[in-house]
């Protein structure tokens, strides 16, 4: 008998519940991650939407930054949405906040504007056969893409979904819709 893979959701702040529900719809066992020891034995990790400064500062103050970086460097499959995309980035355009530096991209925070500019739009996503409904909330975009990073979706000419190795990052919130295709795509592509 094999132990089913367990997916962790970083649960310091943000829309943790929506990611847990999306993973449960796919039949995945899940676990909330709030302390370094919660990372043990995970087969994948989701970094949810939320406020990236809040999540980053809590991760720093509770000793999670180093273990998260180490786990990602070891190839832990990671799905990072919105605030998650900012946290895994190598750099952000402006500002000073804790980052994990696990994905070779430069991200611009609040790139599309404030809440009044938050929007929904149908996106063509590489690897999906029909459009995915993207929900963008004070969303970031990828300003600069490293050599090993593939762009999977764009809004206008701006990358809003990228992948590299066993990681996928999105500017939008697949967890806010009932459509689990991006969670599934991540698990298939990453072998998570």
């Amino acid at each position, binding site marked *: 008998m094999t132990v089913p893979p367990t997916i962790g959701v970083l649960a310091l702040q943000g829309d943790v519940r929506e990611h847990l529900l999306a993973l449960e719809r796919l039949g995945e066992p899940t676990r909330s991650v709030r302390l370094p020891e919660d990372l043990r034995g995970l087969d994948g990790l989701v970094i949810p*939407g*939320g*406020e990236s400064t*809040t999540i980053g500062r809590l991760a720093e103050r509770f000793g999670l930054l180093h273990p998260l970086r180490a786990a990602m460097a070891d190839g832990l499959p990671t799905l990072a949405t919105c605030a998650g995309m900012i946290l895994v980035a190598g750099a952000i355009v402006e500002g000073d906040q804790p980052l994990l530096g696990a994905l070779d991209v430069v991200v611009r925070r*609040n790139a599309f504007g404030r809440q009044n*500019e938050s*929007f929904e*739009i149908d996106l063509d996503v590489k690897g999906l056969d029909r459009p995915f409904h993207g929900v963008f909330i004070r969303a970031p975009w990828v300003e600069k893409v490293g050599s090993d990073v593939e762009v999977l979706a764009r809004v*206008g000419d701006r990358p809003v979904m990228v992948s590299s190795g066993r990681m996928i990052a999105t500017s939008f919130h697949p967890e806010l819709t009932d459509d689990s295709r991006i969670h599934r795509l991540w698990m298939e592509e990453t072998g998570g």
Partner: protein
Amino acid sequence: MARPTVRVVKIKGMDQSNGMKTGTELVKRGLADMLKGGVIMDVVDADQARIAEDAGAVAVMALERVPADIRKDGGVARMANPAKVTEIMGAVTIPVMAKCRIGHFLEARVLEDLGVDYIDESEVLTPADEEYHVDKWPFTTPFVCGARDLGEGLRRLSEGAAMIRTKGEAGTGNVVEAVRHIRAITSQMEALADMTDEEQADQAAMMRVSPELVKEVASLGRLPVVNFAAGGIATPSDAALMMALGCDGVFVGSGIFKSSQPTAYAAAIVKATTYWDNPGVIAKVSRGLGEPMRGKEIGTLEPAERLAARGW
């Protein structure tokens, strides 16, 4: 390093013609989802806003005076001066909320024009209309509103609110009213789940909301929007208590900048909100914090001082 500010950008080829929609229920409620597990702090200037952001606040509420000072000073409490709101918006990258008076749809339109991220139609300010709350549906900017019980919360949702908070009793540093309000909301939702369709329809009529909304709440077992605690939260343990009672996050008003060490209080309340079910963490972060705000016994308030009684 200079702090970044949030810019508004229009991208070429991106407009309503390719199916892009702004101001939808999903994006309004969605921003509240992103605030879950977090602390929203009242601030009166750019310096306080930066302290809040550095402490890990998920958003700030831009105000002219915190509720404890509104109580002390008396007079009519109104929307903050637009210059003040703009100053605070320019100081931080986290969402900025601001309050308008109950029913004052023009203050709300001004706040929307300023580009705040959420509008709190708040009983903490002096009500402008004794008959109608703001019709919130036509706005692009989402609204949060206070509630003392389920019916009040559902009436605000029917008017277009995208997030609910308990009213509590703002500016008292006393958590008892916020506890009363979240317990009322929770027990009324539990009661709905055990009712027949007919009984639910009766409840809807009594609450003056649609039977469909009552049915939705009964089947979800929770509100269809995010529900925060507000009104009287003053310590890390207060914040954790409200999380334990089922709130999605907390607003802290006077509790931070009326304490003896605002920077330490702000950071400690953020940590206690995340680790609300871990008393060891709460004990650790509460150590050496200095004095919380002094606070008020609710029984000592005159009826006119009960802010929660404003609105309906």
